[in-house]
């Protein structure tokens, strides 16, 4: 009898544990794939069929947006990545022939969409209808940064993010606003006090940790997993933009305070200089963009942006920085084609490269190439008549977008460190006489070019 009992117990145990094991295996796989992101095997695709919560939530959301004419497009990095990988297939697939759910059923916490705010007509009714459909929605608003640049305007708040959950899946709707400089901007997702912090796992959101800026994407309609969605025409380009999209706003308030103290220069000459400097910067930005070369505002131009949100009228040139690894040999010819002849070239690609182009109305465009060391960055300077070399040291920095004279341009994210390295703690005080060899705080003598190299490293035109 005892043996029978033992057998019974054993058999029952085996049964329950095998059932349990199956469940665990299923869950574990789920968990693993969520962690690794993409890895989606065929067998699983068929297992998690069209009735997955993610797919159903997205489907309902798309139904909602198309019926309410909410102009949205898909920006979810995970799904765009998948689409990008299978781009040909997606494009060729005829509508409705989807046999398995390959994209929207991928396990994830959120699906991110962008809302083109300027195309949106019926903002009001939408929210209620979403809630009637079963969505639980959270709206995050803030003041409009486009009014910040203007003295003393205060408007109604603009929506920055919507998060709508339905059946344990959440759609993150990032509101994209048009900004001057032909780009789209989205805001920082900042939780105000009354918002339920447990509404969704906020820190897993792909967008909103910082404000972001994107090129205005061209869109295309595709059908995936039986759902019609708009996606950026070039998903690859959009995906590449995401990690570098962080945007910082100019410090308009401080700039106003600056002008209270030092008054703006509104003479005819100052206005003329600002105008030609702006045009030169626009031309340079266009040319470098065509080449695909990253650049940022450096030296005086960067200081002008940071201190007064404008061009310093007595600075006499436009300064840009470029990482030496982004250097392309056709930069000079591209600028010449754009009507900006080379004025001088100092240094060489391996060391202290600096290019200078002659713009219209005697405004000069200086391009400094930055070299990266383990704990700092530097760029070089050369004195033409003596062949002396100089080195300007900067703490390491990353690049952010900002808006400057109606343009989307990059600046060092760690702007204050960058500027203080260059101009010292007294950068707030305007200095009209500037000696590039002595005035900067971070200048160091760096020897002399050997005379044999002068022909190469000191070229004046």
């Amino acid at each position, binding site marked *: 009898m005892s043996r029978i009992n033992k*057998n019974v117990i054993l058999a029952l145990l085996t049964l329950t544990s095998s059932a349990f094991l199956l469940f665990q295996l299923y869950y574990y796989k789920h*968990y693993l794939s969520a962690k690794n992101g993409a890895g989606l095997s065929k067998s699983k695709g068929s297992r998690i069929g069209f009735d997955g919560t993610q797919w159903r939530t997205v489907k309902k959301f798309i139904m909602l947006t198309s019926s309410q004419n909410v102009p949205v497009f898909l920006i979810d990095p995970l799904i765009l990545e998948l689409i990008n990988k299978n781009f040909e297939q997606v494009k060729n697939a005829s509508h409705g022939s989807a046999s398995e759910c390959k994209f929207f059923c991928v396990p994830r916490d959120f699906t991110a969409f962008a809302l083109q705010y300027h195309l949106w007509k019926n903002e009001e009714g939408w929210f209620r209808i979403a809630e009637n459909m079963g969505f639980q929605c959270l709206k995050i608003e803030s003041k409009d940064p486009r009014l910040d640049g203007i003295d003393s305007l205060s408007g109604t708040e603009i929506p920055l993010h919507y998060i709508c959950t339905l059946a344990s899946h959440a759609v993150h709707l990032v509101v994209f606003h*048009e900004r001057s400089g032909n780009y789209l901007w989205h805001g920082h997702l900042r939780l105000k006090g009354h918002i339920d912090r447990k509404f969704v796992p*906020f820190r897993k959101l792909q967008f909103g940790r910082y404000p972001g800026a994107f090129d205005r994407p061209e869109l295309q309609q595709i059908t995936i997993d039986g759902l019609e969605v708009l996606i950026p025409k070039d998903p690859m380009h959009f995906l590449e933009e995401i990690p570098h999209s962080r945007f910082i706003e100019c410090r308009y308030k401080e700039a106003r305070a600056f002008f209270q103290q030092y008054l703006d220069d509104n003479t005819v000459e100052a206005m003329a200089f600002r105008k030609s400097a702006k045009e030169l910067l626009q031309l340079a930005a266009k040319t470098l963009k065509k080449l695909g070369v990253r650049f940022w505002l450096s030296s005086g131009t960067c200081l002008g942006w940071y201190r007064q949100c404008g061009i310093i009228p007595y600075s006499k040139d436009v300064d840009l920085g470029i990482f030496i690894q982004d250097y392309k040999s056709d930069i000079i010819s591209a600028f010449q084609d754009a009507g900006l002849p080379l004025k001088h070239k100092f240094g060489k690609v391996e060391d202290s490269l600096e290019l200078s182009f002659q713009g219209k109305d005697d405004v000069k465009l200086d391009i400094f190439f930055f070299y990266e060391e383990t704990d700092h960055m530097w760029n070089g300077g050369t004195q033409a008549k003596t062949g002396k070399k100089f080195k300007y040291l900067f703490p390491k920095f990353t690049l952010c977008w900002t808006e400057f004279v109606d343009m989307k341009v990059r600046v060092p994210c760690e702007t204050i460190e960058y500027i203080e390295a260059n101009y010292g703690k007294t950068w707030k005080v305007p200095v009209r006489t500037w000696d590039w060899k002595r005035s900067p705080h971070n200048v160091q003598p760096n020897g002399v070019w050997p005379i044999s190299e002068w022909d190469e490293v000191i070229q004046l035109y």
Partner: protein
Amino acid sequence: MDDWKPSPLIKPFGARKKRSWYLTWKYKLTNQRALRRFCQTGAVLFLLVTVIVNIKLILDTRRAISEANEDPEPEKDYDEALGRLESPRRRGSGPRRVLDVEVYSSRSKVYVAVDGTTVLEDEAREQGRGIHVIVLNQATGHVMAKRVFDTYSPHEDEAMVLFLNMVAPGRVLICTVKDEGSFHLKDTAKALLRSLGSQAGPALGWRDTWAFVGRKGGPVLGEKHSKSPALSSWGDPVLLKTDVPLSSAEEAECHWADTELNRRRHRFCSKVEGYGSVCSCKDPTPIEFSPDPLPDNKVFNVPVAVIAGNRPNYLYRMLRSLLSAQGVSPQMITVFIDGYYEEPMDVVALFGLRGIQHTPISIKNARVSQHYKASLTATFNLFPEAKFAVVLEEDLDIAVDFFSFLSQSIHLLEEDDSLYCISAWNDQGYEHTAEDPALLYRVETMPGLGWVLRKSLYKEELEPKWPTPEKLWDWDMWMRMPEQRRGRECIIPDISRSYHFGIVGLNMNGYFHEAYFKKHKFNTVPGVQLRNVDSLKKEAYEVEVHRLLSEAEVLDHSKNPCEDSFLPDTEGHTYVAFIRMEKDDDFTTWTQLAKCLHIWDLDVRGNHRGLWRLFRKRNHFLVVGVPASPYSMKKPPSITPIFLEPPPKEEGAPGAAEQT
């Protein structure tokens, strides 16, 4: 799930149930010892595997959790704003059902306090004369409207009657007189005060003081009055203290169907008063208009900036007409309010539009000018893709075909560099001088009052040198200066597409309005097809003018041009007259002619190279300044240009008197 344990209690249960099949199975097995052993080992192995998988899962979950905890930074990021949370403002209403109201009336000061809070206080000299009216919400005690009617002056009592009639029944009305409020208080107004239950109001006399609290359509809650003893002195100051019982919120509100629109309406109507039928319970006037869309609308994506001050009733009227115009796109409209005024913002919210407030800087004209600059800059910031912006003011009616007019003409602004603006307003387009809704002109002056601004003009020329606050300039005068205009012209219609109804304003008063604006012609015909729009381009327009002058009949220059008989009683003819104009800036005769034609004569408007075009008695009437105008060559040699003598200088007052 990790702490799942097989419960020993369950086993015998299951075993008993399945006894029959289990027995047969058992017997088979006992006969096959080897097989049984195998099964047992298999089961044990299986259990082991389960345990291992379980342990791994637990470890993994732990790691995931600890990873998540290691990264608390973003959490902090999101929490940043926590400290700045505003606590919602609470008004001390609570369960109190009675308001304690104080009203003071005297020669030099009035004030009204509700529950100890002063809601009106006016002791400024030389202003605020007349009857001050305050409307309170009967359920909350909030101030819904605050007006002053200077009933010492004519017509103000009519405005008061209009206003009081619009106030919804049940509201609490408070009236108090400052200085003098009876001189032009006519019978209709007195009858209305009587119907409100006032004893003293209908008998209000010269320089009496009077304070009144009552419910509209309900009982009087308090009244005090002091007669003036003599013509030269004022009544004694009166202070009325009274309790106003509050009614329940349901009583104070209408029960409209629950729609998005009515929610807006409800928010508006429980806050402000004096907008008439929009808050009517039974039959509220619509706040959404859905005018016909415009086929091929070229201005659908052009932002519209409405420049407003604190004239909410004007703004209300303006926005109604704007939103009723064909082809309007409400999401392109932004209302810029000069100052932190609540009521204009409420009006904007009622119509579901975007409103932006502007902290006042500078004074008077310079303030308006800075407000304009900020508004225009903001408009182009908010709509960075826009190439144009429509600029409107809060005291304009907008014609039903306003956008149709712009849609048909806006390409000119794009194609013709010699243009400065397109304006909906013809300075010389009065009832008796405008005729043809399909006709456009080119003029050297900038009329404003509903116009289109090119972004490049603003960004490249105007914005950088916009007059700074310390220069107390009118923005429109500045824009008309030759340094800015630089010889460019504006396109205007013969019949204006906007109507200037504002009577109260910075540069505006009743007399001025009646003389110069009231009789302005305003197009009410929808869908007018403009004629020959491309002939408005620089060169084409010269051809057109030459054609007109060639076919025009020369008038009899011996007659007095001010006489009606100067033009024959015909219809559809084109006539030309030549006046003396020695230099480009000699407008002596023109100004006199304008004065006697009862059109705009305060400065020169509507000219194009010394030519004015208008209508008289349904005939097109051209006036050419000789010899300054290049069209002087069309003058037959026999004709002597008309010369009108300017009146002697000291008659300084503008031609207002002649018009009234």
